[in-house]
């Protein structure tokens, strides 16, 4: 407990030093705010542009969370199909690798071309880049079940559905969460990347990606910094929410479930 207190103080001191150094570099060199704004200028931009920043943040959150949620549902469903039918897995699994290697910046314009500019097509972009880690990890977890546990279920004359839901799915839970953790991080990147192309149907009402382009064009570098800060906070929040859910689901029984959160 005492050690944690010292750690917290240390972290704050390090953070304060970095911010101070940043302000010093800007002030001593008399840098213009559009080249490199100091922390004070960024804080001011954050304060002044707060309503529109929150608006952008919410839009991006919606797209990232929507895409992530859809990828979890579709990914787990696909993995369950792959686990059940080996031939289907061998036939279709290579395409999930394709999904992972295709550059998202190349297909984002296509999707916007087909689905129209707006939140929906950005959600699709996010969905696509989140999908592969979920499928790959969940499939791995579903098929790597201890042979004796399968024999046990066979001896009990368990139905295929019982084997799937009572054995394979719980067994895959740790790897599913590994997949979700990876995808949670890239879902925010997916949302912002999508917005760079999709833009907004109405001026000033786009997500973070659109606002970044807009601020960059307007040379509002201080606001640009504030947006980058907001995007970082969003990514962190996603990550920690997933970590927390993972801890809730696994801490009772799984060895790897984050001892640092277990006190």
């Amino acid at each position, binding site marked *: 407990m005492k050690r944690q207190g010292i750690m917290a103080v240390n972290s704050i001191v390090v953070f304060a030093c970095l911010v101070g150094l940043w302000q010093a570099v800007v002030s001593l060199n008399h840098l213009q705010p559009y080249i490199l704004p100091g922390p004070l200028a960024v804080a001011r931009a954050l304060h002044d542009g707060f309503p529109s920043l929150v608006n952008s943040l919410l839009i991006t959150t919606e797209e990232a969370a929507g895409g992530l949620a859809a990828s979890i549902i579709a990914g787990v469903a696909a993995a369950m199909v792959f686990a059940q039918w080996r031939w289907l897995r061998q036939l279709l699994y290579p395409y999930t690798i394709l999904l992972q290697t295709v550059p998202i910046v190349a297909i984002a314009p296509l999707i916007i071309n087909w689905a129209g500019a707006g939140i929906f097509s950005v959600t699709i972009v996010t969905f696509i880049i989140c999908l592969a880690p979920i499928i790959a990890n969940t499939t791995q977890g579903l098929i790597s079940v*201890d042979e*004796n546990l399968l024999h*046990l279920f066979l*001896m*009990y*004359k*368990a139905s295929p559905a019982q084997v799937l839901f*009572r054995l394979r799915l719980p067994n895959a839970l740790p790897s599913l969460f590994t997949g979700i953790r990876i995808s949670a991080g890239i879902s925010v990147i997916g949302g912002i990347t999508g917005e760079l192309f999709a833009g907004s149907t109405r001026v000033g009402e786009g997500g973070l990606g659109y606002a970044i382009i807009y601020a960059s064009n307007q040379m509002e570098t201080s606001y640009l910094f504030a947006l980058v800060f907001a995007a970082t906070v969003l990514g962190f929040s996603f990550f920690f929410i997933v970590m927390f859910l993972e801890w809730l689901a696994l801490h*009772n*029984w799984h060895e790897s479930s984050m001892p640092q959160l277990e006190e």
Partner: protein
Amino acid sequence: MKAHSGSIPDIALSSVTKRYRNAAVALEDISLTVERGEFVTFLGPSGCGKSTLLKLVSGLSPVSEGTVRINGMTPANARQLVSFIFQDATLLPWRTVAQNVGLGMELEHAARPARKERVAQMLQLVGLSHVATRYPRQLSGGMKMRASIARALVSRPRILLMDEPFAALDEMTRDRLNEELLRLYAEHKWTVLFVTHSVSEAIFLSTRVVILAAHPGRVAHEMQIDLPWPRTAQTRESKAFEEQVTHASRLLRGVHQA
């Protein structure tokens, strides 16, 4: 082999051969009859097919030639009568001890009150009532194995198949679990097929020891174990026990050298 006229043996293997997919012969021409209430242990070098034999009897693996009959039925039809205890405890890590023990009844959609009562009885029987709500990772190796045994007993099996159940335990724990197993065996009079690498464990537990030879797996020797019942820790110190262990070890050495 004892000839009981009229009664159907619990387990009867006649001319059983098992080949793997690569055509290697795991077991060749095994004929073996096990009467109700016998405790038969298989000893033999690795690769002699002891574990495969249990898989054939349980119906988890089909025979290539010959027949297996459990109380006159095919292994697939006799599954209600048989419980399998695996080498490691094979508990589901995401379920508590009680939930693990109740798994079979749950899969059969047994009513919840009946299940709870039966699980409590079985946990009591193996001395695990106090850890019913714990998860497997919080248990010692011996406790996990007890939970595994409790799970096997829930269905009131007539036949127990045990594949090196205590191999991973330290000797003290193994001896104690051996004694407890015999106490339960005396009460329930199951028919047991038991696989082990330990000669003294085999002699201590069994009414009959079957020594297998490898490549291909076949029956090399059979020994009736006539040590008096009940067998306790003192049994291991008796001269008769030591003589049987020495004899079995000698037979086993012969099989190894062949």
